C-alpha cells in the first residue's frame, strides 16, 4: 500500500511527463536495468527534485504522526489523544517561533539546526504539563480531563506564540509559512533534516510495542507483572514527541492523522499494539501521500493545504470503516 502510494505520488502532478512513463523511468534509473521510457532529462528533474522529495516527506510525516499517535494512546491508555490534542504540536510551534524571533538567519548555518531541537523541547514541555495537569485533577483513568488539559495547554501556548509574534512582526511571515507547512516546497534537504529524528523515534517506539500491550492492563497490574511503568511511559513519550516535533518542523500542522490511522488499524486488525504500531506506521505514510495528491491538482496552479485534504478524506474513511465493522458483527 505504501509502495503503491509512493508510485501514485510520483506519477501525478500538474506538470511533467505522461503518468505511465514514470514507473518505467524509475525502473530505468535502478542499476542494471535499461528501459526506454521516453522521459526527458528536464521531465526527470521535475520528478526527482520536485515530486519525489515531497512524496517521501509526506510519507515520513504520515508514518511518524501515526505511530506517535498510537504510542500516545497506548501510554496514556486513552483512545482520544493524538499529538495535536496533547499540545505537542502547538508546543513545537512555539519552540520554532522562539528560534525565528531570536535569530533564524544566523542559527540555520550551525552544525546542528536548533529548529527541530527547540520544537522538541517545547513540545515535550507541553505534553508533560498536559499530563501532569490532566492526571492531577482527573486521576489516572479520566480520559476527558487529559484531553481538556491538552486543549488548555494548546490555547495557552498559542497565546504565548501570538504575543511573541506581535512583538516581532518582522518574522511573522516566516513563522506563519512555517506553521502552514512547507510540504509543497519540499526539497531533499528537508528530508535529510527530519530523517534522523524519524528513524530514531520510530525505531524506539516499535521496540516498545509489546510493553504497550502490558500497559493496557493498567499501571498496578503492569507493575505486578514486572514492568517499569514510569520508565516505559517516559521513554515512549520522549521519543513520540521527538518524532512529532521533527515532522511538525517541516510539515506544519496536519491534524487527523495521529488519531484516525491508528483507529482505522484497530478496527481492521484488532487492538494489540504489536500490530497497531507497525501497521499505523505503514498506513500513515500511505495515507498522507495519498492525501497530498488532490492538494496538488485540485486548484491547479494554486495548492490546497494538506490539512484540509486529510480532514476531507479522513472523516468519511473513518465512518466507512466504522460502518463495515459494525455490519460484520
Amino acid at each position, binding site marked *: 500500500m505504501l509502495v503503491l502510494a509512493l508510485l501514485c505520488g510520483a506519477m501525478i502532478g500538474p506538470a511533467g511527463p505522461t503518468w505511465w512513463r514514470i514507473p518505467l523511468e524509475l525502473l530505468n534509473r535502478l542499476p542494471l536495468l535499461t528501459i526506454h521510457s521516453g522521459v526527458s532529462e528536464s521531465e526527470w528533474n521535475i520528478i526527482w527534485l520536485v515530486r519525489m522529495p515531497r512524496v517521501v516527506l509526506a510519507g515520513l510525516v504520515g508514518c511518524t504522526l501515526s505511530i506517535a499517535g498510537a504510542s500516545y494512546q497506548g501510554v496514556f491508555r486513552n483512545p482520544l489523544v493524538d499529538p495535536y490534542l496533547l499540545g505537542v504540536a502547538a508546543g513545537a510551534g512555539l519552540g520554532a517561533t522562539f528560534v525565528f524571533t531570536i535569530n533564524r538567519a544566523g542559527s540555520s548555518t550551525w552544525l546542528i539546526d536548533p529548529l527541530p531541537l527547540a520544537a522538541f523541547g517545547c513540545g515535550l514541555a507541553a505534553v508533560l504539563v498536559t499530563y501532569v495537569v490532566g492526571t492531577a485533577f482527573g486521576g489516572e483513568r479520566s480520559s476527558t480531563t487529559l484531553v481538556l488539559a491538552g486543549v488548555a495547554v494548546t490555547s495557552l501556548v498559542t497565546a504565548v506564540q501570538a504575543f511573541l509574534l506581535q512583538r516581532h512582526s518582522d518574522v511573522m511571515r516566516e513563522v506563519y509559512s512555517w506553521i502552514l507547512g512547507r510540504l509543497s516546497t519540499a526539497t531533499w534537504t528537508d528530508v535529510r533534516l527530519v530523517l534522523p529524528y524519524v528513524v530514531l523515534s520510530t525505531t524506539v517506539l516499535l*521496540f*516498545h510495542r*509489546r*510493553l504497550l*500491550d*502490558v500497559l*493496557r*492492563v*493498567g499501571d*498496578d*497490574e503492569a*507493575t*505486578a*507483572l*514486572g*514492568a*517499569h511503568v514510569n520508565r516505559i511511559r517516559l521513554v515512549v513519550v520522549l521519543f513520540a514527541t521527538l518524532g512529532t516535533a521533527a515532522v511538525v518542523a517541516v510539515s506544519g500542522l496536519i491534524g487527523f492523522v495521529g488519531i484516525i490511522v491508528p483507529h482505522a488499524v*484497530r478496527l481492521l486488525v*484488532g*487492538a*494489540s499494539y504489536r500490530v497497531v504500531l507497525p501497521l499505523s506506521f505503514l498506513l500513515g505514510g500511505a495515507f498522507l501521500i495519498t492525501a497530498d495528491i488532490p492538494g496538488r491538482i485540485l486548484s491547479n496552479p494554486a495548492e490546497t493545504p494538506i490539512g484540509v485534504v486529510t480532514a476531507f478524506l479522513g472523516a468519511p474513511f473513518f465512518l466507512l470503516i466504522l460502518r463495515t465493522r459494525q455490519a460484520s458483527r
Partner: protein
Amino acid sequence: MTSLNFEKVSVQYGHRHAVVEFSEVVRPGEWLCLIGPNGAGKSSLLRAIVGIVSFSGNIVVDGATLHDRNARRRAQLVAYVPQSPVMPSDMNAYEYVLLGRNPYVSHFGSESVHDTAMVNSVFERLDLSDFTHRQLGELSGGERQRVAIARAVAQEAPILLLDEPTSSLDIGHQQQALELVDKLRREHGLTVVSAMHDLTLAGSYADRLVLMHEGHRVVGGTAQEVLRAETLAEFYGVSVHVHHEPDGTVAVIPRRSLRT
C-alpha cells in the same frame, strides 16, 4: 515450594497507616487467607508484596528479601490477581494470558517458543481452549475470573496472591474459582495468600486464617480457632451464628439483631 515471611511490614498512604508492623510466616504450600472488615489493610498488604505500594519492614521469599530483587525477578516469584482486574474489552484471552510471560521477556525482546507453548498449555489445563480468541469484553464474570487466574498461572510463580477472588461471582462460580485455585495449589505446590470477605468460604478452603483490623494482625489460626462468634462480633461489629459441621468445616451465618 516457597515460603513467604512478613517481618514488621508497614504500609502508609500519606498520614494514614494501612498496615502496621505485620509479621507472619506463610509455610511452603500453605493457603493463608487474610480476613477482616473493609479497610483492615488486607489489599494493601497484597499490593505491597507485588510492588504496587511501597512498604517498610521486610518481605522475605525463600530466604531473600524482596527489596533485593528487581521487578522482573519479583514477578517470577509472585503472581497477583487483583479484586477487579483491568480487562480491556478489545483484547483477546490469548493476548491477555500471554502478558503473564512478561517477567521472562527482556525489555525489548519478544516471547519465545517456550513462552507461547506455556500459554497454550495453561489454556488446556484450565479448560479454556475454547476461549483463546474470544474478546475479553464478551466473557461472563466467571469466565473473566478464570482467564485472570490463567494469566497468573502463566507467570509460573510459586506464590499466588488473590485479592477477593470471589467478590463478583455467584455461589456456583465462587466455588468453581476456589476449587480451581485449590487444584492448582496441589498440582504445582503453590503457596497461596488470599484476601476474602466470605468467611465460610475462607474457612473451608484456606489452611489458616489471619484476622486483620485497622492494619494490625489480630489473631491467626485454623478456622475453628479464628471464626468465633465473640471475635467476629468484636472486630466486624456483627452478630453471627457459627455452625460447626461434623467434618470440621465452619459456617458463619449472620444473624439479624433483635428489633427493639
